């Protein structure tokens, strides 16, 4: 018998969304525990008891507390509570997915996350002024150097690690999708494979992909209108 674990997350967080979509797609039941980062709920003493690092996502399974999205999915996979399609059991296939999951931290995640924080999150919360055009350019260059690595090194097939959607694709796509809030869209001419891959990931994981990104979609449309 498997217990239903508590899942702490905010759909404004990329790794939270990657897990949330995986759970929905893979029919993993979980106890819904949203944490509102915008209200700084992660910084309360109460939440510190849940996750000592005060970040989302986090899991509580009985009295076992775990943070770090990738550690969480590996734990659930070993317990038989995570889709085998999304995180394969075969040693070599799994290693390919792991290769991407480990690679993305300092490449895709860092460059997209930084751009998002500087260009949207901090200014919108009045925690920092909007960066100069020159700085924005630098951040975009950094993002695009990583998109170009995906384009050249990861997309020989329909998905990042083969012909099937895995968590690797979800981790990659949720980082890039979030940049809509900075009014950044992947240019089809510059990155044709990435562009098509993002469409495939969305198709393969809908309706959950859109559901997880609904706030981001609404906000980015509002921001685009405000600019007109």
């Amino acid at each position: 018998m498997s217990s239903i674990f508590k899942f702490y997350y905010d759909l404004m967080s990329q790794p939270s969304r990657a897990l949330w979509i995986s759970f929905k797609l893979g029919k993993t039941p979980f106890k819904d525990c949203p944490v509102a980062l915008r209200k700084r709920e992660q910084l309360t003493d109460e939440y510190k008891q849940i996750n000592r690092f005060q970040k989302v996502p986090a899991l509580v399974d009985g009295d076992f507390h775990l943070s770090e999205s990738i550690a969480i999915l590996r734990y659930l996979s070993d317990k038989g509570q995570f889709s085998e399609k999304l995180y394969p059991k075969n040693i070599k296939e799994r290693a390919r997915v792991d290769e991407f999951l480990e690679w993305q931290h300092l490449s895709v995640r860092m460059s997209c996350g930084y751009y998002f924080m500087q260009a949207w999150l901090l200014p919108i919360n009045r925690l920092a002024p909007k960066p100069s055009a020159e700085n924005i350019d630098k951040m975009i260059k950094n993002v695009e150097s990583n998109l170009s690595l995906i384009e050249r090194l990861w997309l020989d097939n329909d998905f990042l690690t083969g012909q099937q959607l895995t968590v690797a694709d979800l981790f990659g796509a949720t980082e890039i999708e979030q940049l809509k809030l900075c009014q950044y869209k992947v240019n089809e001419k510059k990155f044709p494979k990435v562009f098509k891959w993002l469409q495939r990931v969305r198709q393969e994981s809908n309706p959950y992909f859109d559901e997880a990104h609904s706030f981001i979609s609404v906000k980015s449309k509002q921001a685009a209108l405000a600019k007109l």
Partner: protein
Amino acid sequence: MKMSLKYYYDLLSQPSRALHIIFRLSGLQFEECPVALRNGEHLTDEFKQNINRFQRVPCINDNGYKLAESVAILRYLSAKGKVPEHLYPKYFVDQARVDEFLEWQHITLRVTCAMYFRTIWLDPLLTGRSPSASKIETLRLHMERTLDIVEEVWLAQSEFLTGPTLTVADVFAACEIEQTRMADYDVRIKYPKIRAWLKRVRAACNPHYDVAHQFVYKISGTGPQAKL
């Protein structure tokens, strides 16, 4: 007999050293394939085609199966039964604790120590220009914010990062921190727990620890016993 596992590494690379130590501790048979990053040996087309498309170290070739990313490599070899359980637990709850650290370190310990090392030691060597005092100060603050978490959270109540005994988490962390010696940073001054823990890690890994760190000791002009 032909050795089937090839290991490509440079002992001046932190994750390369970590795997080197882990392989030795595991009694793993492998073919040593050193790559001199300083001579740009990883930048050739031949390296990209035949060894690692990301043009980085560490990486392996296991009977034709190529894999990059230190943590993915470790998991792959563990799944093949090549890494002893005491270094990387098989029991999923214990493994999750180690995974939590391995996932946590990328954007925290790894980034901040590596940036400090690069900016203060490597870049001046390549460009002939030294970083400004204020730049150094900012990098140090970032690094120390992470070292604070190692000292206060990870080492709060145990001898090693994830429990009472050495695991791969400790080896990865120690290799990152040792790198900063070359930039003349002495972690031992402000961090008594890290200081004592580093000694334990070295003792638990020797003689392999000192072998892997021979160039770090030489370049920094500090052996493990020396005062900085």
